[in-house]
């Protein structure tokens, strides 16, 4: 898949996953890489950016034997961002479908 195309929607996919439930990095990369082929490292860069923009926040959870897991949680700002991007994507996707003659 075209890298430029993917880049635009990846952030939305990340927001969507975290909106369902808090999760840790590895969980998120597994979830997304099952659906699409990508360098999972990129997702950590997106998480970092979302955190800088205060769309997500993190907390540590003791994982028993292993090292503590860093969980990501969607903030209010994150929800707004998610909704905004979701709508943008919907209208964009509808427009593309239309242009491709599918609808």
């Amino acid at each position, binding site marked *: 898949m075209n890298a430029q195309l993917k880049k635009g929607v990846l952030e939305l996919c990340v927001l969507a996953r975290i909106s369902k439930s808090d999760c840790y990095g590895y969980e998120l*990369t597994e979830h997304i890489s099952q659906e699409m082929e990508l360098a999972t*490292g*990129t997702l950590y860069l997106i998480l970092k950016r979302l955190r800088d923009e205060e769309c997500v926040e993190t907390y540590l959870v003791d994982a028993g034997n292993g090292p503590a897991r860093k969980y990501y949680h969607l903030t209010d700002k994150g929800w707004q961002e998610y909704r905004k991007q979701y709508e943008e994507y919907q209208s964009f996707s509808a427009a593309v479908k239309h242009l491709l003659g599918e609808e």
Partner: protein
Amino acid sequence: MREQYMKALREALVHVNPEIEREIMEDFEAHFDMGLDEGKTEQELADELGDPVELAKQLEEEYGRFETPEKGAEMQAKEKKWYQEDMKENGVDYFTDTEGEIKVLKLDLAIADVSIVPSEDGVFRLVYRNSVNQGIFKKRLRYRTRVFRDTLVVHEEANGVSGRSYSSVEVEVPENFVHIEIKDRCGDIEIEKVDVEADVSVDTVSGDVRIEQLSTGEMRLCTVSGDIRIDNLKTEMMRAKSVSGDVHLEDSKCENTDCESVSGDLSMIGFQAKRMDFSTKSGDVELNLIGEEGYEVVAESLSGDVEMPRRERTSGLFVGGKYRGMIGNGEGRVYVKTLSGDIVVTE
């Protein structure tokens, strides 16, 4: 594989802000930990994460390229132990001794101006700069720097360097420094507010020497045509030699003093010493003595005038141009000798 991948990542992230680098490295380490727990291999995980160079590029695009040129240069210098096999030309070199190893400084220079000041944070630093106007002739200024144990050496060679070329050495020395040795041809030398345990030695041809507030065990100065000016020097033993340069000392205390010139004037104002020896061929000698004890004075000029303090504490005798006598109780000794210069002694 994991180790190789993380190493490659660290290397790729050199131009990424260290804060971000640290965070990304942590995330990736955790990713490896969990992936391995889930039964994946290091190879699989590394492949999935993607090309470190590509990731670094994305980070640089997003957060900007992070540059640490100065720190980088310093670190590199430190790693190499600042050792240069070959002579270098035009450039700037930094040296910072964060471990407090450097105690001895040796400068062997051609045209560089030298400035030595105290280090505010106790860290030894040296910056060497030069720039040469090459012109149509092969004009060259080359330098080499070395660190050997506690000694830092800067060596500079000039070959037909034009007047517009310039070079400088700036040094910050910490309190417990032991030895400073400077050889220079035409650069000016300035030492200010420094405390050097053992000794300081300065040797120049035409450069001027300016010393202010220096305290050291032994001081040795030598110049051909450059002037020497010293304010507030404290030392056990001072020797100054000049051909045509003047030697001027003010408010200083040097237990033993030896000053010699051919045509340069010697002047000591507000000067205190146990034993002094001044000798010149055609220069004048001006001596303003302070201190509780008196002096036994021998002053001799073949064709010049000799003038002694007016107050009748003097009990000396003039025989020809030679004065021999006592000022006060005569604890200290002063010998002044000139062929054609004048001698003036005041209290």
